């Protein structure tokens, strides 16, 4: 009887306090894994160093640039070009947030404590998205101002108030958050670190290179809708080359990939053994 008395009130735990407990446990796991803070610090170093290197190099080489190169020069995209590297670290962080828990076996403890698996995954994604978005957005402003201060006249530079610029600066943080979430959900689908990393990087970095080898229009048309290329429009000021997607359309395409991966992850995490 007494054992039953102990179990009865458990059923009446409010959704609110249950969500708060899951939130707390996901936050502890996120911040106590060494790769978390480390990856975020490396991302910061890459973004700032990339802005410094590429913009000071562009400023130095401006005189030698061809008129064509000057016309297509995108001061915002050049500043944020290091995102191409930073996304590997944010993506890897997303993957390892999940696969690290699977490989250490902690996931069994997590699901034992919170059998509501959907809730676990939702809170995991929420904690990850909030931290990464806040950090990357906070980074893109100093990177932007550092880059633009280096691109002094005659090199082309823009101010934060110019049309489209603020959107692109916020786009950098949103893009990285989406790539990280894509990695997180792929991690749930694949559950092994090397395979999940290869799948994410293959989708983001390798497929565009493979399509670029094709001579027909299909290559460039399909390429425009790959997650990396489409989402990348978010932090470009000028639509690059054949690309016709704008900031928000591009980000929307990337978000659709994330949503598809999330849907599959939520469906599978309930069905599979941990």
């Amino acid at each position: 009887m007494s054992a039953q008395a102990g179990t009865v009130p458990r059923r009446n735990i409010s959704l609110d306090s249950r969500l708060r407990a899951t939130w707390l446990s996901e936050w502890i796991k996120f911040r106590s894994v060494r790769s978390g803070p480390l990856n975020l610090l490396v991302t910061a170093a890459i973004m700032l160093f990339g802005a410094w290197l590429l913009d000071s190099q562009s400023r130095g080489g401006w005189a030698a640039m061809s008129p064509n190169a000057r016309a297509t020069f995108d001061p915002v995209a050049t500043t944020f070009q290091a995102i191409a590297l930073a996304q590997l670290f944010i993506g890897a962080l997303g993957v390892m947030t999940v696969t690290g828990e699977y490989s250490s076996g902690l996931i069994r403890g997590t699901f034992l404590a919170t059998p509501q698996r959907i809730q676990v995954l939702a809170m995991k994604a929420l904690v990850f998205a909030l931290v990464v978005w806040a950090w990357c957005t906070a980074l893109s402003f100093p990177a932007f101002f550092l880059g633009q201060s280096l691109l002094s006249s005659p090199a082309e530079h823009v101010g934060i108030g110019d049309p489209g610029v603020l959107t692109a600066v916020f786009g950098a943080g949103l893009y990285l958050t989406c790539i990280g979430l894509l990695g997180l959900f792929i991690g749930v689908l694949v559950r092994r670190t090397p395979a999940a990393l290869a799948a994410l990087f293959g989708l983001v970095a390798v497929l565009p290179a493979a399509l670029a080898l094709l001579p027909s229009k299909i290559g460039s048309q399909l390429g425009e809708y790959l997650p990396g290329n489409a989402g990348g429009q978010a932090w470009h000021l000028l639509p690059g080359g054949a690309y016709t997607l704008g900031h928000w359309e591009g980000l929307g395409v990337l978000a659709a990939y994330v949503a598809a991966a999330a849907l599959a992850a939520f469906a599978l995490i309930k069905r599979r053994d941990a």
Partner: protein
Amino acid sequence: MAHTMAALSKSSAGHTRPTGYRRARAAFASEWIKLRSLRSMLVLPLLAVVVCIGLADLVCSNYAANWKHLDAVRKASFVPFDTNIGFVVIGAIFLGMLGALVVTNEYGRGLIRTTLMATPQRGLVLAAKAVLTGLVAFTVSAVICFTAILTGQALLAGGHLPHVSLGDPGVLSHLLGAVCYMTAVALIGLFGAVLLRGSAAAAISGVFAVLFVLPVLTSGLPDDFLKRDLVPYLPVNLGGALYFTHPGHGPGVAGTGAAVVATAAWILVLGVAAALSLRGHDA
């Protein structure tokens, strides 16, 4: 009793001094067992064969199908061998991952501690791993490159496009360049994984960063000393210099001789650094 002790001391004395040859043979045998029983050793080469040959044939058949729609400039600049061999840019990633996984799998399971206990000569362990992985990578790359070129050129020939055959000047040597570059990437992945102390996440990310992200970042650099003196010696650009018949002559491309030397230097420097790191660190 005395007899047993004598036998024991005799046998243990015999064990303390195996000849260098026997020790090396044992190390190679144990590395080979680990290598061939690894599941990635089956999955990755198969994936590489399918993706690389598929991509090369897709590109060639795509050119053959679109040939009459291409303008005169693109027709004039069409190089049949280079178009066909372009898959190496993608294919190298499989070899890099193969090399990295040989190491990270052993660290991930903790097997590395047993390995180093059995063979405390850590340099020998690394050498055996590198030689065997190199041989496997060379064989896989050779199969991929020759099949891709033979089928791709057949597709081009079928569409009445310009094409080359194995006997044409420069074809075999650049094909060998592609095979050697893919093998080199496998060794770079292996040594890089040892330097990263067997972390799978770091090693796989590193392979992708070196092969796919560095080229994107350096493409934004203007034409100054960085681009002229450093960028050509990144592994990706060395590869281009080795396997393209027309790699271009602007900044960013090393000569063939320089590319061979620089690729060998990458492997040598990384190999020595990996050996030192393996000797100096706890596993």
